[in-house]
């Protein structure tokens, strides 16, 4: 009896799904899984960039944000790779380099192959911050201190094998010094609090959050872990300008993906519509107001970017 009902139900959904998936998708509200808590930078940006999803020229159906926070994003992505339905109604937000670095490090059941990217909405470089009254005024001051006191320069970041940690590893490697990276269990906000409260001597943090903290007069920003200076912080030099060989591997790219196995027509439709949704003028103005740098990339560009990151990160983490 149980099997009968189950198979009948499956037949029904298969029929309905097969016939309707291509043309009428989406027919009901879509959910977007964010692997960080409500109020974090990823959550906040995801809420903004999806706010116009219900418009007729976008998907025509609203997108609801579901938070599955924990262990630097591992909880959410593990769920997304293993338990999320690949019916096109479950989207996920990705953070690069976080999930790729975690999959290289191991202990999780996902890798870049578990997901299909749709589009990228933002790129948030890591920056190095110190408290406003700190004696450090440039990255060289920081590195000199670390060279004189090996392993004693404590600095905070959002966790292990997330963008901040990658930036920290790059700094250690490029400067040839030993540092004490202290991962925080409350993400970027907790790491920033540790810097402002002077629990640690410095910290790696998101550009968007650091920009805000500097506006509030709480921190100095000493360097940007990116290839070029950022529009929000034209006065802050990159690490490269200050003589450290560091590229943009740690830049936090945020975008939308679906689980592997989602029907190709749905992926195509999303890949076509979602970037235009991000490009909406209202979205752009809200993101700018919040101090969040936007960087829209299409599905093809994201596939390339994922591949490049995978290679770069494998190389960086192999040295550990």
């Amino acid at each position, binding site marked *: 009896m*149980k099997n009968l*009902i*189950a198979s009948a*139900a499956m037949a029904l*959904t298969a029929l309905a799904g097969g016939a309707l998936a291509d043309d009428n998708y989406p027919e*009901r*509200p879509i*959910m977007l899984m964010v692997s960080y808590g409500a109020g974090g930078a990823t959550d906040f940006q995801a809420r903004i960039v999806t706010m116009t999803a219900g418009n007729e020229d976008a998907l025509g159906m*609203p997108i*609801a944000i579901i938070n599955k926070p924990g262990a630097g994003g591992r909880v959410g992505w593990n769920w997304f790779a293993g338990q999320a339905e690949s019916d096109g*109604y479950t989207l996920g937000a990705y953070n690069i380099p976080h999930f790729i670095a975690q999959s290289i490090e191991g202990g999780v059941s996902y890798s870049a192959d578990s997901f299909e990217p749709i589009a990228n909405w933002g790129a948030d470089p890591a920056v190095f911050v110190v408290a406003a009254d700190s004696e450090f005024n440039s990255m060289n001051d920081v590195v000199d201190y670390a060279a004189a006191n090996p392993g004693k320069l404590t600095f905070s970041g959002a966790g292990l094998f997330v963008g901040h940690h990658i930036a920290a590893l790059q700094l250690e490697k490029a400067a040839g010094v030993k540092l004490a990276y202290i991962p925080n269990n409350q993400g970027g906000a907790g790491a920033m609090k540790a810097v402002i409260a002077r629990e640690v001597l410095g910290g790696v943090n998101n550009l968007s959050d650091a920009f805000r903290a500097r506006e509030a007069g709480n921190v100095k920003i000493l360097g940007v872990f990116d290839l070029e200076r950022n529009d929000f912080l034209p006065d802050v030099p990159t690490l490269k300008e200050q003589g450290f060989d560091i590229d943009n591997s740690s830049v936090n790219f945020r975008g939308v993906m679906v689980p592997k196995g989602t029907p190709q027509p749905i992926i195509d439709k999303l890949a076509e519509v979602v970037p235009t949704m991000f490009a909406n003028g209202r979205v752009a103005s809200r993101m700018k107001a919040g101090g969040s740098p936007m960087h829209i990339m299409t599905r093809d560009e994201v596939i390339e970017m994922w591949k490049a990151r995978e290679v770069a990160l494998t190389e960086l983490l192999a040295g550990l």
Partner: protein
Amino acid sequence: MTDLPRVQHVIASGLVAAVGVSVAYISYTREPAAAFLFPRIISTVFVVLALWTFGKALLGQTKIGNGLDLEAMINIAPGLAVSLIFVFWAAQTLGFYTASTIASFVLLSLYDPAPHRELKTWIKRILITAGFLVVMYGLFARLLSVFTPREIFF
């Protein structure tokens, strides 16, 4: 009467102690050790307290909690069975709303003291079930737009 709670106490505290011992065993054998430092501390305290409680139960010195009498167990059995089937099987397989409708109606029929032989009783039970489900649908599906598993209806 005095023996039943004593045996039950032994069983209950024994189960808790067994959980404690297995948690401790896992904590002390798994790697990486750094990640299991905290579980090791907790499970040590856990085991000590659990064995103490177990010992007291064996000696019959447990004063608090009087276990379950036979009547209560018989009363609980059908309701618990329905609830567990509802949560662990029906909710996912039949969809939340269908499963809740059936479960609520069955539970009402099982535990409502009104006489089963009157038509009025059954109409009342159907109305209560329907009313409750309408409220749930309005609250969760409409207002909060929570998309629950739904196989057959809704």
